[in-house]
Structure formats: C-alpha cells, structure tokens
C-alpha cells in the first residue's frame, strides 16, 4: 500500500465564456458512465437521465437576445444537502477524493437526496433501461450499471480518478495536474471545462478559479460547491 497522503480535493472550473453550449459534455458523460437513454415520452416528462445538463436561459429581448448556457452537474458540495438526508448512507462524502459519492448498491430509493439537491443534479432510475443486444457491448465495465429504483449522479468520473491515482502509484510518482480528466472535460471542444486538484494552489483549476469572473451556483445556500463557474460575456478587448 502506498503511504497515506493528504487527500486531493478535486474540483471543476467551468469557463462560461468559452462554453458554446454544444452538449458534447453530455454525450461524453453518458457514454462513459453507462447512462441509459429513456426515449421521447420519458424525456418529455422530465425523466431524462442527464448527469450533466446544459441550462439554457434567454437573456434580453429580440433582437438583442442571446442564450446563456450553464452546464450543471453535481457540484460535489463540501457541505452537501443530499448527504445528511439519506437514511442508508448511499450518499456519502469520500475521504479520499473529497467528492460526494453515489453508492448505487446501497441506495434504497427514497429519492430524498434528489429533492434536497438545490441543483437538481441527481437522477433516478424509474425503470430498468435495457440496452438491446449488442448495444450493451459498449457498457463501461468500470461503472456500475444501475438497476431500477436507485439514484445516480455525476461522480466526477471517480473511476478515472481512481485509475489515474493507481497508475501514478504504480509508477511511483504523484498524480500530475491535468492527468486525470472526467469524460466531459476530456471531450469539451472549447476547453471550457478544467478539472484538477483545488487543494493545490498551483493546479490549473485552482489558478482559473482565482478569477474575478468566478461565481458558484447558489452560493448563498452554503453548500460549498466544488464547481466554480467563470462568468461569460465581457467587453470587446476586455
């Protein structure tokens, strides 16, 4: 066993000025994390299982109207509202990654956590969603396939964090900044998503988070989100 080190504190920075709203992150997330598709009627009824969704709101009136995109995923709150309400510890804080874990095989499906998440980042498996043969071949063996009745959510691709850490340990070195990337960060064509150890002030994510454009979602609720947003827009030349 490798010796115990101070835990890394994984964080995500979303630069909304770079974000175009292209939704590549949603697709990448879904394929990495075995997220099932649910079909037209279910999406229409608000049951799409997007771990990450792009909140599009309109700013202004025609003709000076434009969409404001805000990709919202689990904010991995330091003080997560979903954690205390779960009766069976299926929503727990991980010591090692300092993120909020969704323990699928412990979940009994009270859905309390989902009600209590102010970001609506948690999704529920309303049914068993079977992939027809041979489409189940692409299921990622690193990620549990959830059955009906359990909650699920963005995990910051914890399987990738673990894999990266194990690889670094096997090679006898520290995890490098930028070495571990969740699927959304890896795909993002505009480079709007940056992932890293925010306990290390030198990491790119930490540096970006120290921006005057920074804000966090519903900061006033005191959830201490681990995701930082950088405001979009700005003036020409600014």
């Amino acid at each position, binding site marked *: 066993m490798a010796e115990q080190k101070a835990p890394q504190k994984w964080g995500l920075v979303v630069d909304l000025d770079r974000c175009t709203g292209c939704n*590549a992150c949603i697709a990448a997330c879904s394929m990495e994390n075995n997220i099932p598709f649910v079909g037209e009627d279910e999406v229409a009824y608000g049951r799409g299982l997007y771990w990450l969704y792009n909140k599009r709101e309109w700013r202004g009136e025609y003709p000076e109207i434009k969409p404001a995109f805000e990709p919202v995923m689990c904010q991995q709150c330091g003080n997560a509202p979903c954690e205390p309400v779960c009766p069976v510890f299926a929503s727990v804080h991980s010591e090692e990654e300092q993120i909020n874990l969704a323990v699928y095989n412990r979940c009994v499906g009270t859905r309390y956590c989902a009600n209590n998440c102010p970001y609506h980042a948690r999704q529920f498996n309303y049914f068993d969603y079977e992939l027809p043969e041979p489409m189940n071949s692409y299921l990622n063996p690193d990620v549990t396939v959830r059955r009906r009745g359990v909650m699920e959510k963005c995990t910051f691709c914890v399987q990738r964090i673990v894999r990266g850490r194990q690889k670094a340990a096997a090679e006898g070195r520290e995890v490098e900044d930028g070495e571990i990337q969740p699927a959304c960060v890896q795909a993002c064509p*505009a480079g709007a998503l940056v992932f890293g150890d925010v306990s290390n002030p030198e990491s790119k994510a930490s540096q970006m988070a120290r921006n005057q454009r920074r804000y966090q979602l519903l900061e006033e609720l005191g959830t201490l989100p681990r995701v930082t947003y950088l405001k979009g827009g700005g003036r020409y030349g600014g």
Partner: protein
Amino acid sequence: MSNTLSRRDFLKLSGLGAAVSAVLTGCGPMARYIVRKPYTSMPEYNQTGLSTYYASTCRECPAGCGIIVRTKEGRAITIEGNPQHPVNRGRLCSRGVTAQQGLYNPDRIRGPVFQARGDAGRAKAITWDEALNVVQQALASSPDQIAFLLGAAPDHLFDLVSEMTATLGAPAPVRYNALTTFEGRTTLLEAARLTFGEETLPYFDLANADVTFAFGANFLENWLSPVAYTRAYGEFRQGRPTRRGYLVVFEARQSLTAGNADEWIPIRPGSEAILAAVFNRLVAEARGKPVSPAFSTVTVSAAAAASGVSEEKIRQLAQLFAAASHPLAIPGGSALAQADGLMTARSLLYLNAVVENLGQPGGVFLTPAQVAATDFAAVKELVRRMTDSKVKVLFIHGVNPLFELPGALGFGEALAKVPLVISFASFPDETALASDYILPDHTPLESFGYQRVLAGSDRPAYSSFQPVVVPLYDTRATADVLLAAVKQLGMAAAQAFPYKDEVEYIQQKLLPLIEAGGFYTAPEIFTFWSRWLQYGGWWKPQAELSAPRQAVPPEEAFPFTPPVELEEGKQFYLITFPNHFGDGSGANRPWLQELPDWMTTVTWNSWVEIHPKTAEELGLHDDDVVRISTPFGFVEASVYRYPAIRPDTIAIPFGQGHTALGRWAEGRGCNPAQVLPTTTNAAGDLTFGSVVATILPTGKRRPLARVESKEGIYGEH
C-alpha cells in the same frame, strides 16, 4: 508453435476442428492473419481488466477528427479525442463520442443481402461469393453506364473508386453529403478559386482574430470542422490574457454560433451579398483603400433597406471591423445558399484582403489539400442521367441520397430507372432499402483506411482508420469487394489493381508520406504502417499553411438580387439548419436523439421555430402541429416558439424524418429535404436559403420533449 494462416483460410479450417488448443490471436481487431499461440501468452487486447487503446478517425462527419478508442476484452468502450491529432487536439463533439452506438447498433445489416428494392417476398440473404459475382458483372457492363455515388469524406475509398473509374473509363464518382450543402462548401471553394486563384478551402485563424464577422457560417455546430473551430473559439474568447475576441454573426435565425456571438444581426435572408459588399466599401474607405468597382456602387441605404439593419448599425459595425487589429470575415452556410451566394463568399473573402489579414495571425490561410469539388450540380446531372436511363449500374456508398437530397430532385424516381443499384450501406437506410443489393461495408470502427484532412488542420495531415474491434457481422470492406471484383474481371483492369486487399492498397498510397517530412518516418512501409496506426495518422510537426498569393475582388458591378418579397403574415422565409444529427445519419444513435438540441432543448423530434410574436398573430401555440408548404412539397412539425428568430422567418432542423434507418430513427419528426428547392447558385450549390413557405395549422397537437421547463423559461403553463 506459431504458424500463420490467412484469416479467410482459417475460417474454412476452423470447421475441421483445427487449433483446439490454441489462442486465436488473429481475433484481434487489426489482425489480418490468424496466429496460433499457446494460452500462456495471451494477446494484450484479451487480458481481463486491461484496456487497450486504438487510434483511429471519427467518421461521423467529413471533418476527420482523430479519436482514441478504449477497448476492453474486445469491446469498444469509450471514444476519446486523440490529443496529438492536429484537427481536434484531443477534443470531440457529441457525434464523435457516441459513435459506438453505430458500431453496436442492433439494426445493422449483418451480411450481404439481395434486397430486391424492398420486395420482402423476393429478398434473401446471399453469400459474399454471389455478391462478388454481382459486382463483377456490374463492373463489366458498359463503362459509361456505371455510376458511383459516394459520401463527401476524401478517403481511400474515394481514391480507389476514382482510380477504378478512370481505369474502366467510367465517369468519375459523384460525391454528396447534405452537410457539404449546408456548409456551402462548393461556393466557398469556388469563391476561393476566384479570389485567391486556388481551389482550396480557406482556413480561418479564429483563435487569433479579434473582431470577427460570420455570415451564416455555423462553425460551432457543423461547418467544415466544428471541433477545430470550437477549440479556436475558446482561444478567441479567453486564450489571450488581454484581448477578448468580438464575434458578430449575420443570419436570420439565431444558430448556436450566433447565440454565442457578441452581436447577432438578424438580417433578411437574401440580403447577405449586398451587406457584404457594403462592408467591403465602408471598410476600404475607412482604411483608405481603393474600393473595388463591384462595391463602389453599393449604397449603405440600399443595404440597410435590403437587410433590415439600420444604416447607423451598418456604419458602426464597419467602423468596428476596420479599426480592429485582427479582423476576420467568415462566409459560409446559409449565407451562401442564396442566389447571390457566390458573390457573398467572394466579397467576404476579399474583405479579409482589404484589412490585410491574409497569411497573418487571426487571418485567412489556404489549406494544403486539393480537393475535387462535390457540388450539387454534379448530383443533379447524375439524376438527369439516371432519369434518362443512361445509368445501368449505380453503386452507392456513404451517402443516403433518398433522405439527404431535396425531394423535388426526384432521386427516387430516377433510382427506379436504374436497372441495378448496389448499396454498401451498413444500416438499413432509405436508399439501401430501395437498392437491389446491400453489400454491407464494415462500420468505421471496424475498418482500415485513411482520410485527407481538408479543413480544420493548420498543417498537412492524413488521418488513419483502423479496426478497434473485430467486425461483428458478416460484412466486408467495400474496397476489398471492389478489388476482388476487379480481379475477377481479369485482364487490364486486374493488372491496374494488383493489390491483395484494401490494406495493401492503403499502404501503397502511403508510400509518398514516408519521405514527406512528417513528425515520424520509417525506413520501410511496414514500420511506417505500425506508427501510422499507432499515432492515428500522419502530419507535419509544425504548422504549415500558405498565405493566399493574391486576392482578386469581383470586378464588374454586380446586379444584386433583392430579397424575396413576402406577403406579410402569410409567407415566411424558411431556413433549414443541421444540428447534431449532421447529415441525418446520426438519427439512429439513441443518445444523439436523447441529446437536447442546443438552442431549444428539444429531443427525439423535429420542430418548427416560429417567433412568438408571429405565432401569436397566427394563433399558434407551442406544440401545435403545422404544415409547412413550399412550392416543392410540405412537411408537418410541432411549433416551438423561438424567441431568437426574425418574425418573418421560420426554421426547421435537418436530420429527422427518417422512414428507415432502424428503430430509433424511423417515424420521428419530418425531413425538411422534402420542401427544399433544386435551384443552384452560380457555384452550383443548392440555394436552400431562399425558400418561401406558408404555414397551415393542422389542428393537431404533439408535445415536444423538451428538457427545459416551458413554464420556467417562457412563463407558460
């Protein structure tokens, strides 16, 4: 203990129960030979718990992004961007990351079939030997009666077919893809030829530009190389510590690109050319340059009247552009799909010359690859030949013309006049089902090949394909089928193509690259080949783009076509725009269906975007099904009251409305190709941007599956 058999020989042998005590390492995806080895030395791709990564190329659109596919125990798990690839630098779009859903699509065609044009009674599975005979006989018919219709990707199959048709004396392959029409690619090429003297796609250095004007070029969605341009857009916004780019987009309907712009100028469709001309004049005047005669007669008031933009605004924007240190003008997409589209493209390309950004950072470059144009006019010509019964054999690969071409073109009727139609489709798309034979090609993740990178790369680049999994079904590479058939033809044709198989042909084509100064090389082709596969292609180690040597403005005064006058409240400009389904082939990927549309968050269906004010005047509500009619046909779709569109314009997304293509695509939404015209602009591109449509309520309602809350966003219940 190791001994080598060809893959096909092995399949014959295996029936005899040979090799019972051996691992069949030939089952690895790239293996062309079966190697027997003891169980103790398992090949790496078969080790439980370990991932194997293969570099290849995304072929969901013709851009050619590099991918790395993570496989485990012989299954393709996730698709990631290739960080070294010059096009996408490790990034991918939603189409690229969901490509496994094509590979593992349950509706794939699993072996060669005699399709009998959909006559279920006569349809039957055939063997590849029978299929080869069919192809051989087809190739043996009179050369001028053979036609190939291929997709737009400049890949090895296109090269092979081009050589083959040249050898046989048949007409060169015709290429089509709905995306190239929506890009206005032909117009752009023609404009580049006229302006810069070279028929090659321009490369716009968005990352280093500051004030950027984009006319219809939806480069964040589909245009030319969306991942490359989105990456550049990120740099354009925040890549420089002190400068933030300023994007102005001119189009009637706010696309994702326009939505991300600092200013969206909703101009009247058809007024792009005169607006581009007036910017040329104003910017030249502001910069103290001579004004080209084609632009000197254009007045600001005329442009303002045509486009609906105020004179003050036009002058202000021209001033902004002229004063910028790195201004850039990008023509493309719907702006070029007008009668004056070529003029628009030329004006805007020349506008770059006026501000002297050619070959400068943040300016215009020329991409190295020369490409044969694939214009809509050539497709029209093919259809005419088919209708005149001048085509006896039609080979179709990589394109779904029955879906992608405007219905008014009459491809379906023309197809009926062709005695033998052979499709190489992997999926039961509309065209494949109307063919005599379907001889399914491998899907992209199962096949070898290469693709020249046309746009999006700042250096010459070839992207490689390699199988990441063993072909799932009894499919065969189309290049292999053609090579085998030509071999059976014998004589001169066989001598011209002495290749054992597709891979040997590809290796042959790669030989010049060994000496071409790429970022790696090798003493001989086999070592080169292994690196080629390992890196996912070949490219130069440093950026290498040429600046246009000259820039010629349109000389003579141009008679601008005025925008079509509408009968107010009755007629509307109709815009057809592609979204993440691309050319429509993405519609059978369930996750692309489930993916919310960028702007409307609608999933799994088609909709028609109508300005809320217009909808109110017409008495239309959200989800009302309306019939959109043009002189060329009609479609029905649900209303989405879209706040970012001109009140005199409506828009329909392209890609849905399949009548075939499997369980997830069929019977959803409408195909706006049914309402498109067949007219072309001066460059031969389809003028889909100047269609006038009428709206008729049907009295039906069909709710759209939106991710957004209609109540929350629009305040409606």
